[in-house]
């Protein structure tokens, strides 16, 4: 599995506030990766650091095969917080400037403007745009040059319900083409609907990272325990449909690629002479899981 971005212990302090505590994270190629967290959790700080507009107090990060961040950025389309454009230029002129910066030979300006439904206003000045149009132009800019990685911070900010649905569709379409998409958001539904992987941040700490399936209701997670945990683990690893195994809170959290009910699992293990002392099917929605993770962290 190729890694597009490797974060290795970046952190950021603003005066007395530790905005981001050192953490590690790998983003595999071709995934749709959601970075989830409430406001002020360190999402934008993380994105700022990996895009080179904020300096990290510690650690480092690697894009692609260790390319310099400025070279790497030409392969990345990014939308960070508010859309920033030159107000006196038209949408077309603004995108042309971005294309110059990214050194694109034949920029697909008309195509991306069409994708976000701005082609009819392409030659109007940016300062006359509504918030939703500005946001759509920012998405168009991030799509310029068909980047290998798309990095979107709160991409549906300021959009109406139709716009939100369109952007969600667009992200799914782009991800289906093999583009790695990284989405930072505090809106769970946004991440839940499109992301294959999720990382949860709160108060600058990474609380969770892994498959979104493990967090969401679609694929339930089965938690098991037995007197001999080692034997249990060996037996479970032999199961061909096992997708993921995570030790957590003294249990093993399992997810399977095929349908697997607790009773079937229990039966399979019993056939191998392993008797469970604990079994639970966890069917929390992403939202519940998310809140759980957040409250668990607060309790500590």
């Amino acid at each position, binding site marked *: 599995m190729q890694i597009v971005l490797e974060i290795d212990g970046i952190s950021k302090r603003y005066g007395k506030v530790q905005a981001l505590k050192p953490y590690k994270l790998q983003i595999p190629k071709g995934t749709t990766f959601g970075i989830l967290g409430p406001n002020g959790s360190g999402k934008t700080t993380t994105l700022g650091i990996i895009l080179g507009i904020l300096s990290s107090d510690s650690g480092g990060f690697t894009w692609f095969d260790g390319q310099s961040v400025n070279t790497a950025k030409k392969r990345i389309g990014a939308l960070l917080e508010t859309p920033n454009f030159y107000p006196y*230029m038209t949408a077309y002129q603004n995108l042309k400037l971005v294309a110059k910066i990214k050194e694109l030979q034949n920029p697909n300006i008309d195509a991306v403007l069409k994708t976000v439904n701005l082609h009819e206003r392409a030659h109007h000045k940016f300062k006359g745009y509504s918030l939703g149009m500005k946001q759509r132009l920012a998405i168009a800019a991030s799509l310029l040059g068909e980047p290998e990685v798309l990095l979107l911070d709160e991409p549906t900010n300021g959009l109406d319900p139709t716009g939100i649905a369109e952007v969600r569709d667009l992200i799914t379409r782009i991800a289906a083409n093999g583009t790695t998409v990284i989405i930072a958001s505090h809106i769970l539904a946004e991440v839940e609907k499109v992301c294959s992987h999720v990382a949860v941040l709160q108060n600058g700490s990474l609380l969770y990272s892994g498959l979104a399936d493990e967090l969401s209701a679609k694929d339930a997670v089965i938690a098991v325990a037995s007197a001999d945990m080692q034997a249990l683990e060996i037996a479970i690893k032999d199961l061909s449909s096992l997708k993921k195994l995570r030790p957590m809170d003294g249990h093993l959290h399992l997810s399977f690629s095929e349908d697997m009910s607790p009773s079937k699992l229990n039966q399979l293990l019993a056939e191998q002479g392993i008797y469970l002392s604990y079994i639970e099917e966890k069917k929390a929605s992403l939202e519940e899981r998310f809140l759980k993770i957040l409250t668990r962290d607060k309790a500590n």
Partner: protein
Amino acid sequence: MIKLISIEWHKLRYHRFFWIGMVSFVLLLSALLVSFGSFQIFGSGAEADPNDPSMLAIPANLADAGFYTLPFVWQNTSYLAGFFKFIPAFLMLFFMASEFEYRTMRQNVIDGLSVGEIFFSKIFSLLLFALVCTLTVAITTSALIYSYNDLAETDFWYQSSFIVAFFAEVFFILSLAFFLGILLKKSALAIILLVLYYFVVEPVLGFYVGSPISDYLPTRPSRNLIPEPFTRLFKINSFLNIESLDSISIKNLLVSFFYSIILLFGSFMVLKKRDL
């Protein structure tokens, strides 16, 4: 390099303010330089009295007084043009600060420019502004020389080095504006501070520290580059008839460039250190 120039030019060419500022600067300055010679001199038209040596002929206007006469004309025009250097300086400062106000510099970095590349693209603007100013004065002055002088008698280029001094003066004020724009990120605040510093803080400071230290305060070398020509202009026809030529102090020229480089280097360091 070409890429950076093309990026910066793209930002400038669509800005109405850039064209209004530059065109009005060029037109106003050349119009002033051309019409300045026809300004009346107080008490003009008096005839010399052969019986009274204290009664001298007063020329009708500044052109008659020798404002456009070689070799002094280079110094006269570039000194006068010096008052206009604040127009490009304010433009520079405005462009610099608006990159922060609209967070576009941050966006440029997100899109793939390094801070160093942005810095050098902005240096292109600075050089462009300085060259437009210098060429305006050089071309207008050349035209005036052709219409007011007999070139068979005098050397066209003699004393033309004042143009270099004018370039240094503009380059310095643009560097100061560049630095303040980056440091303060707010154009209105930076313009007020620039004017306050140039016209109040440094003159007062200079008065307190006294010569020779005052000669080395940041804006002083650039101010002293082109000596004030009017005193001499009115002495030409006086009974003493002294015609001493002013010259550019190489020391002022070097110190002025030195301060400009320090300001630009400081701007670079601020940009580099600061989170965008």
